[in-house]
């Protein structure tokens, strides 16, 4: 049997309401089935008492009037009117548990004729079968470990080759009395140094990075959208991309477009003032 397709509209609506993915999928599949049945003209929904009686008669004709292998069949087939009143149902439960005196006791007494316990009465329509989605998994060894090992070797090789051909920067002895022009922070702080041109040092050096880091950490708690699909989180992705581009622009400006006195220069005119 082909797998039931997911009804995308239902799935999207449920996901946006915060319904877990697994349940949204199951409900979306049920929606597809309902649609198909409606198209075929099959009646769906709860059955009337008449219909239930008719269905019971059909059931007896097909499977015999008494006995039956399953709890479901027994419970329904023995019912005189097709439906049990709550009192009848309670009496049946008591009887099957061997409780004739009405006092609850657990388990089946030794003198009971029953060889089984009734655990539940199941409606003939059955219960919804929702099983956890099987995950597609592979063994860590060899699949993951091989990928990791290759990545590690590649990175190690790149690092070794770069280190062989390019020497780390080493300048003359530190001299507190001789300020180089320009004096630059390491590259990852050059965005902040660039901000120093526009803001008070307290804002550029403390407030912006502090608030930025706290906001970054709090992102996980502020983003309430349960979906991880890119199409469902355009705003989050756009914001992140915007801030990362902004930050990259500041780092590039501070790194390559600032020269003596940290004034603006064009690297292709005035040369590079950048050291790693």
């Amino acid at each position, binding site marked *: 049997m082909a797998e039931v397709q997911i009804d995308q509209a239902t799935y999207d609506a449920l996901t946006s309401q915060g319904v877990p993915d697994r349940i949204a999928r199951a409900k979306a599949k049920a929606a597809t089935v309902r649609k198909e049945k409606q198209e075929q003209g099959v009646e769906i929904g709860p059955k009337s008492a008449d219909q239930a009686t008719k269905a019971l008669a059909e059931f007896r004709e097909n499977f015999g009037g008494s006995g039956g292998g399953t709890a479901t069949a027994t419970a329904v087939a023995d019912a005189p009117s097709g439906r049990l009143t709550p009192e009848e149902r309670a009496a049946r439960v008591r009887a099957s548990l061997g409780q004739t005196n009405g006092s609850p006791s657990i388990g089946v007494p030794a003198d009971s004729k029953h060889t089984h316990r009734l655990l539940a009465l199941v409606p003939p329509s059955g219960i919804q079968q929702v099983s956890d989605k099987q995950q*597609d*998994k*592979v*063994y*860590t*060894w*060899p*699949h*993951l*470990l091989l990928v990791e090992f290759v*990545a*590690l070797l590649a*990175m*190690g090789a790149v*690092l*070794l080759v770069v*280190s062989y051909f*390019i020497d*780390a*920067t*080493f*300048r*003359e*002895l*530190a001299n*507190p009395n*001789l300020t*180089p022009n320009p*004096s*630059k*922070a*390491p*590259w*990852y*702080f050059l965005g*902040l140094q660039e901000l*120093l041109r526009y803001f008070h*040092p*307290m804002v*550029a*050096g*403390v407030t912006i990075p502090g608030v930025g*880091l706290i906001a*970054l*950490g709090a*992102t*996980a*708690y502020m*983003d309430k*959208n349960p*979906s*991880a699909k*890119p199409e469902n*989180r355009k705003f*989050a*992705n756009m914001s*992140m991309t915007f801030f*990362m581009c902004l930050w990259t622009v500041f780092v590039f400006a501070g790194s390559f477009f600032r020269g003596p006195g940290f004034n603006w220069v064009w690297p292709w005119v005035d040369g590079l003032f950048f*050291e*790693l």
Partner: protein
Amino acid sequence: MPKLPSWSEIQKNTQDNVIWKSIFRPGSIYRKGYRDTSRDRALAAMNNVLYHLHPVKVKRHGLKLTYTYCLGGLSFFLFVVLTITGIFLMFFYTPAAGAGTELAYADMRNIQASVTFGQLVRNMHRWGAHLMVFTVFLHMARVFYHGAYKPPREFNWVVGVILLTLTLLLSFTGYLLPWDQLAIWAVTVGTEMMGFTPVFGKQVQFVLLGGAVIGPNTLLRWYVLHVLFVPFVTVIFLAVHFWRIRKDGGISGPL
């Protein structure tokens, strides 16, 4: 000439003794041998110290290179490379400066000129450090775009942000150690900004510099921060980070 033992005899004699059995746990592929069966694939992961990092099975989509680009793993790999090269450099480096005793700078020159592989190891340490800042940053971007910080992984995202900060601190504290013009002036620019922290900015700066300006005390402090304190804190957060990945259900997704 006495008869040489066969390969299987050597193997049996090596493996069938108390010492070998004490090293490799029962069920280890080094005791029972390895055949390419599901059972042995599972045992290879289970009877391995890597079991602390990886479960026996992982989601298939996580293997795709374009899902993770191995960025987290490579960041950790660079951290290990930096630890190893850093220990090598420590053998030849004295964090001492000051008029007449410019030992730090002299040792740097010595490492590059006289120590076997000194220049190469120093280069690896420096380029590896820059690279690690870069891979950690890219790892963060990757996790964000996959929405991998969403429940139940919110706290691990916070640990990740802390690790990003620690990576920057590791790199920045190491930046001073060569004690050349580039080092002290880059650090001067960086620490001047810290001095503008409200209320206790000057005190923070004073503690970090070990004085009002950068000097020999600063070098010793930043050396200790760089080789002991920050790596120690980083390892703790790394342990929590890795542990939470597994507890939160492994790799995120599929999307």
